[in-house]
C-alpha cells in the first residue's frame, strides 16, 4: 500500500464528511438561532475567544515566556508541563519499582493487590484528600497526575515482567550472565510491550484525571480555564477549551503513543512462549 494511495485519500475525504456536516449545522445554528448563543456559541465567537484570551500577548516569544497576558497559551503550557513532569518522574519510578517487584516472586505477589487497589481508587477520588494535604493549586493537580501515572505503569510493568517465561532467565543465567544482565537483557525487553501499553493507558487516564483535578482543586491549566469560564457563562471559552483538550489528546495519542505501541509490539512483542 502506497503511503498516499487512493485508499488513503478516500478515507481522509470520507472521514471529513461528518465533521463538515457538524460544522455546517453549527454554523446554521448561529444563523437561525435554534439554540441560544449562551448554550451553543457560534463558531466565529469560539474562534475570536482565542484572541480575547491572548489579548495582552504581543508575540510568540512572549507566549513561550508565559507573559501575563497570554491566558490560553499559559493554561495549555501549564497542563502540558505537568504532563511532561509526570512522565519524567513517574515513568522511571513506575518502571523501576515494577521491575524490582516483578523479579522477586514473593514481593510481586504481595505488591500486586496493592497495585490493584491503588488503580481502583486512581485519579479523581484522590482530589479531596490531596486538597487537604497540598491545598488548592498545582501541587494537588500534579499529585493526582503522578499518582495515576505511577500506579498504572508500575502495575503493567509488574505484569509484564512476571509474564516473561522463566526459561529465558535460566538460559541466560546458564550462560553465565549477571543479575543486572538478566534484568537488562531479559526482563525489560520481555516486558516492554506491557510497559508501553501501561504508558498509553496512564496517559489516557492521567490526562482525564488532570483535567478533572484542575477543575476541582487547581488554580491554572486547561481544566481550571474550563471551570472558570463556565462559571462566568463564557460558553465560547468553554467550547474552545474542550476543542483544545481533544486536539492535544488526539495529537499525543495518534502521533506518539499509538505508533510507539505498534513499534514496540512489532519489535519486541512476538516472543516465543514455551508451552
Amino acid at each position: 500500500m502506497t503511503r498516499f494511495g487512493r485508499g488513503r485519500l478516500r478515507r481522509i475525504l470520507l472521514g471529513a464528511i461528518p465533521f463538515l456536516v457538524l460544522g455546517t449545522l453549527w454554523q446554521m445554528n448561529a444563523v437561525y438561532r435554534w439554540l441560544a448563543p449562551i448554550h451553543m456559541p457560534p463558531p466565529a465567537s469560539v474562534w475570536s475567544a482565542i484572541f480575547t484570551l491572548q489579548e495582552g500577548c504581543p508575540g510568540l516569544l512572549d507566549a513561550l515566556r508565559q507573559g501575563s497576558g497570554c491566558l490560553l497559551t499559559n493554561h495549555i503550557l501549564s497542563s502540558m508541563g505537568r504532563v511532561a513532569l509526570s512522565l519524567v518522574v513517574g515513568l522511571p519510578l513506575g518502571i523501576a519499582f515494577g521491575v524490582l517487584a516483578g523479579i522477586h516472586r514473593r514481593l510481586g505477589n504481595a505488591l500486586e493487590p496493592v497495585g490493584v487497589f491503588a488503580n481502583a481508587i486512581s485519579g479523581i477520588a484522590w482530589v479531596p484528600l490531596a486538597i487537604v494535604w497540598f491545598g488548592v493549586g498545582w501541587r494537588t493537580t500534579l499529585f493526582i497526575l503522578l499518582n495515576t501515572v505511577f500506579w498504572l505503569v508500575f502495575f503493567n510493568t509488574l505484569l509484564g515482567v512476571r509474564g516473561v517465561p522463566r526459561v529465558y532467565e535460566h538460559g541466560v543465567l546458564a550462560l553465565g550472565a549477571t543479575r543486572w544482565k538478566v534484568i537488562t537483557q531479559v526482563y525489560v525487553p520481555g516486558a516492554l510491550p506491557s510497559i508501553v501499553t501501561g504508558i498509553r493507558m496512564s496517559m489516557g487516564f492521567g490526562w482525564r484525571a488532570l483535567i478533572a483535578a484542575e477543575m476541582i482543586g487547581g488554580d491554572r491549566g486547561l481544566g481550571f480555564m474550563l471551570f472558570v469560564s463556565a462559571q462566568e457563562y463564557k460558553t465560547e471559552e468553554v467550547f474552545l477549551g474542550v476543542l483544545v483538550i481533544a486536539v492535544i489528546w488526539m495529537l499525543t495519542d495518534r502521533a506518539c503513543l499509538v505508533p510507539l505501541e505498534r513499534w514496540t509490539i512489532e519489535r519486541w512483542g512476538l516472543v516465543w512462549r514455551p508451552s
Partner: protein
Amino acid sequence: MSSISVARPDLLRSARARRFWRHGGLELALVTLLALALWTAISASIARPDRYLPSPVSVLDSSRDLLWKGILPNYLGQTLWRLVTGSLIGIALGIPFGILVGLNRTVSEMCYPILNFFQSISGIALLPIVMIWWGTTEKTVFVVVLYTCFFPIAFNVLTGVRSTPRIYVNALRTLGASRLRIVRDVLLPGAMPSIATGARLSIGYAWRAVIAGEMLAGRRGIGWMIFSAQQVDRTAQVVLGMALIGVLWILLDRYVLRPIESDTIQRWGLVQR
C-alpha cells in the same frame, strides 16, 4: 488448577483454601496488615491526624456514624444506580450503532474519525458545558455518564465488526443468507470480544465520570460525600469514601466485568482469522 475440580466436596474446601494460600493469599494478608500498621504509625506520629491522615480506627468510627444515620447505604445506592443506568443505556445504544455503522465499508470509513474524535473528548471535560445546559440536575450526570460510555463502546464495536473476516460473510452470502442472518450469525459473534473489552473499558471510564459528576454537579452520592466532607474538614469520611470507591470497583471488576470479558473471549474469541 482444573484437576482439583473432581475432588470430593469435603476435600474441596481444604483444596480451595490451600490454593488460596499458595496463590498469594498469605502475601495479601501480610501486605494488608503491614499497610494498616504503617497507616496507623504515620497517623500517630503526625500533628493533627484528624485533619491530615485519620487512623484506620477513626475511619471505621466515622463509618459507624454514617451507617447509623443511613446516609452511607443511600449514597452508595445512588452512585451505583447512576453508574448502572448510565452505562447500561450507553452500551445498549452503542452496540447497535457500532454494528449498523460497521455494516457498510463506506459508512464505517466515514464515521471512524468522528467517533475517534468524540472518544477522545472525555465526558469530564464536557461537564462544564452540560452544566450550563441543564444546571446541577440529575440529567447532567446522566448525560455525561451516557456520553462517556457510548463512544468507547461504539468505537470498539465498529472496530470489531470491521475486523471480522470477510470470508465468513461471503460464505454465508453464497449460501443465500439474508442481511439480518449475516448480522446475527457472523458479525455479532465476530464482534463479541471487542464488545466485551469495550464494555469493560467504558464502564471504567463511566465510574470515574460518575464520581467527578457528583463532585462538580453536587448530586448526592459517594463522590459528593468525599467532596463535601473535605469542605467541612471531616477527613475520616474522605478516606472512608475513597476506600469504598476502591473496594466497590474491585468487586465490580473482579466479579462482574472480568468474568464476562474472559467468558466472551473464550466462547467467541478463538475465531480463525
